[in-house]
């Protein structure tokens, strides 16, 4: 109940203001009515004060006429009428307010009463004399009554005149007082009207001010400015409820927007991750495709090489057997699924087989070195990383070098990172080509096309098909580190391609048996 009533405070205020205004107007009107009533009463009293005396005079004159008629006709009905009229006149005189005052009207009224009483006695004397057949008596009494009637008329005239003069004086005084009263009434009404206007202006301002501020806040929010602060409103009324509800709505909107933003970010991240996975898969597919294209029935070759191993054993040709075994290892590594992670030791083992073959193939033309830390960690990493790099070093870097060429594979630990580097002292990479490789690998959107171009180029250059760009892209996508690779190349001096791999804690400093 209290909450309901407090919620209706605004309505109550508007209602009370209306009631107050109506009451004030009503009171002003009633006051005006009271003024008019007093004015009318005063004027009626002033103007009507002589009326009773004029009526008395009329009654007296009527009585005189009846007396005269009776005296001349001696008619009983006239006498009866006379008695009735005289009784009425007597009662009227009796009922008059005979309070004696100092003013002339009061004294004249007393005269009039006395004169009428004398007149009634005179007329009664005349009637008695008439009924007693006393002719001189009724003649004298009638004459006396006529003289008194004259006095009554004169006194009535004096009384009317006195009342008129007194009434005029009172009327003038009354009019003067009313003029002053009217002046104050006009002042009162003017000030009341001005106060009403001021009060209405103030009240409407108080009423619409918070609403205007609320509307401005709503407009700001509609324009997307959710950070505004809603003007405080302390009253517990409808506007207060509206303000609180509005503030709650604003807070909810902000929270919902935050939630939506957060959800969208999560979804974006998920989408990005999915996209990355798709890209990795796509690259792998492309790499595998190119690898397959580059392979000539590797299983057949592998089986054939095994047969060759058997044959070498039978012929006791150990070098041949060892050569064929390493060649078989290289083929086995090449046909291995590329999306599988392998330990670093496996990758090193594969590259050792490859190097063995390259040593046999190029005799003392190139030197190969592998430097490992001790102990050597053995983290998981994408397969077929080192071989393409060594292959590139031989194929592109040392291709035109007849002697003293070398390729060095270095594994080191530094600042919690595992650094894997392939260095040669070959021809180096031209800066524009190096820039193109790096740009292509950094452009995720065109990665596939770039890779296609690079690998095509590699193929055209008698590469095994898995080029530098492919290696870099796979490493970047797998580790999510755009700075994972660094290439230092000086044309004519050699090239150093290094990878910086995060070192998982569990494999820190684990000595691999192959290292």
């Amino acid at each position, binding site marked *: 109940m209290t909450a309901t009533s407090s919620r209706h405070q605004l309505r109550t205020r508007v209602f009370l203001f209306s009631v107050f205004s109506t009451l004030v107007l009503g009171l002003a009107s009633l*006051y005006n009515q*009271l*003024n008019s009533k*007093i004015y009318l*009463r*005063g004027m009626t*009293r002033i103007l009507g004060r002589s009326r009773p005396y004029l009526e008395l005079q009329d009654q007296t004159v009527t009585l005189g006429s009846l007396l005269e008629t009776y005296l001349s006709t001696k008619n009983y009905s006239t006498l009866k009428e006379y008695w009735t009229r005289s009784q009425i006149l007597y009662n009227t005189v009796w009922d008059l*307010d005979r*309070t*004696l*005052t*100092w*003013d*002339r009207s*009061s*004294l*004249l009224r*007393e*005269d009039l009463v*006395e*004169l009428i009483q*004398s007149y009634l006695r005179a007329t009664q004397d005349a009637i008695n004399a008439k009924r007693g057949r006393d002719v001189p008596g009724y003649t004298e009494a009638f004459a006396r009554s006529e*003289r*008194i009637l*004259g*006095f009554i008329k*004169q*006194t009535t005239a004096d009384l009317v005149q006195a009342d008129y003069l007194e009434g005029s004086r*009172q009327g003038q005084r*009354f009019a003067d*007082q*009313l003029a*002053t*009263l009217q002046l*104050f*009434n006009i*002042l*009162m009404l003017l*000030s*009341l009207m*001005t*106060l009403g206007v*001021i009060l209405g202006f103030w009240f409407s301002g108080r009423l619409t001010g918070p609403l205007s501020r609320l509307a401005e806040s709503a407009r700001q929010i509609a324009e997307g400015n959710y950070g505004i602060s809603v003007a405080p409103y302390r009253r517990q009324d409808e506007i207060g409820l509206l303000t609180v509800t509005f503030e709650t709505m604003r807070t909810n909107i902000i929270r919902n927007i935050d939630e939506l933003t957060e959800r969208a970010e999560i979804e974006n991240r998920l989408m990005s991750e999915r996209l990355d996975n798709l890209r990795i898969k796509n690259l792998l597919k492309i790499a595998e495709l190119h690898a397959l294209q580059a392979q000539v029935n590797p299983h057949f070759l592998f089986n054939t090489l095994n047969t060759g191993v058997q044959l070498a054993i039978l012929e006791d040709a150990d070098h041949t057997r060892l050569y064929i075994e390493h060649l078989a290892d290289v083929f086995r590594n090449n046909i291995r699924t590329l999306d599988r992670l392998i330990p670093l030791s496996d990758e090193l083992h594969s590259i050792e087989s490859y190097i063995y073959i390259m040593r046999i193939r190029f005799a003392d033309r190139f030197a190969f070195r592998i430097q490992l830390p001790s102990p050597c960690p053995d983290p998981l990493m994408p397969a077929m990383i080192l071989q393409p790099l060594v292959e590139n070093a031989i194929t592109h870097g040392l291709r035109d070098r007849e002697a003293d060429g070398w390729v060095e594979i270095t594994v080191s630990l530094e600042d919690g990172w595992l650094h894997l580097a392939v260095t040669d002292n070959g021809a180096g990479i031209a800066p524009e080509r190096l820039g193109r490789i790096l740009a292509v690998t950094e452009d995720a959107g065109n990665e596939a096309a770039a890779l296609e171009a690079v690998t095509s180029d590699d193929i055209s250059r008698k590469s095994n098909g898995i080029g530098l760009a492919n290696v870099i892209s796979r490493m970047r996508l797998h580790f999510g580190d755009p700075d994972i690779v660094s290439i230092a190349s000086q044309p004519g001096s050699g090239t150093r391609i290094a990878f910086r791999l995060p070192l998982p804690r569990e494999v820190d400093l684990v000595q691999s048996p192959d290292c």
Partner: protein
Amino acid sequence: MKIISIALTGCIVVLFLLASGMSVRYLMDIAASESRLPMATTHPDWRAIVLLPETHDPFYLQVADALEKNAREHGLALEFRPLPMAQDREMALRTLELAITAHPGGLIIPGSANPDYVNLIDKAVASKIPVITVATDSPASKRQTFVGTNGFSLGLKAGEFIEQNSAENARIGVILSQPDPVASDINNQSIIAGLAQALKHGGQRRITETRSDLPEALSSEEITADLIDNHHEVTVLFYTSSKDAIAAAQHIVDRNRVGQVMIIGVDDPPELVDYLRKGIIAATILRNPDNIGRLSIESLVELKTSNNSSSFRDPGIRLVTRNTLADAAGGLRTAATWGFKGEPRERAEQAVAAATAEPPR
């Protein structure tokens, strides 16, 4: 801005409160005064009717004023009616009869020797209405009391002044006022007798002209003009009406005869006092209307309460000259109450101020 608005609103509120307060107050005053009309705070105990000559003589106005003032002190309401004795005798008699028929608690009237007038007085007394005659008397009637100046004393006082201040062979003119010719005859005879008594041992001084003014307007001025213009031997003029004395003074000024004619008047209306102060009128005899009013009311109250009062009460007279004007200021102050029946009170107050001012050297 806010402070100005609040101040402005406060001013309007104050204006509203003041206006409404004054309006309510005025309305209450009007309502109260309007409802108070029939109710006086004090009421008279009884009433009497006063009939005074219908004249412009300030003396009677002062008498009326004194009567009313004293009557109020005794709870007596007075109803004044004019009595046109000189103008319309029938009307005067009829007025008296009306007053008697109205049966007041008392009658205060001027006296008259007219038999009908006397009869009416007797009728009033027979109706147990006490009758007081003022200024002039009806000695033949059954009136209970006469309050007024004795004509003989008035004449004697004037004669004594003339004897002391006029030439040995001065010729004296007497102009008698006649508010009621019948009543005045008796009174005038007494005045002449008193004057003659004073001049009995006054050497060669003689009353050579005795005139009575007529009720019509300007008659006294005509008499004065005739005496001054055509009777150069008359050097002393005695008036029994202040109005006539003032007219004579004005005429002397107009004729440039100031200092050649001695004027003696009665009573103390402002104009007369002014002429007295300027030396144009030599002396005036105060008939003391205040005392007349007071003694009349006292007599009426005595008759009302004990049915007994003196048959004659003398209010006394006093002669005032230019030199004794300051001493007579107390007596002259009666003029200050001379605002009866519309006469401007300011004039009376001016007269008192003039009378008490230092005379010019």
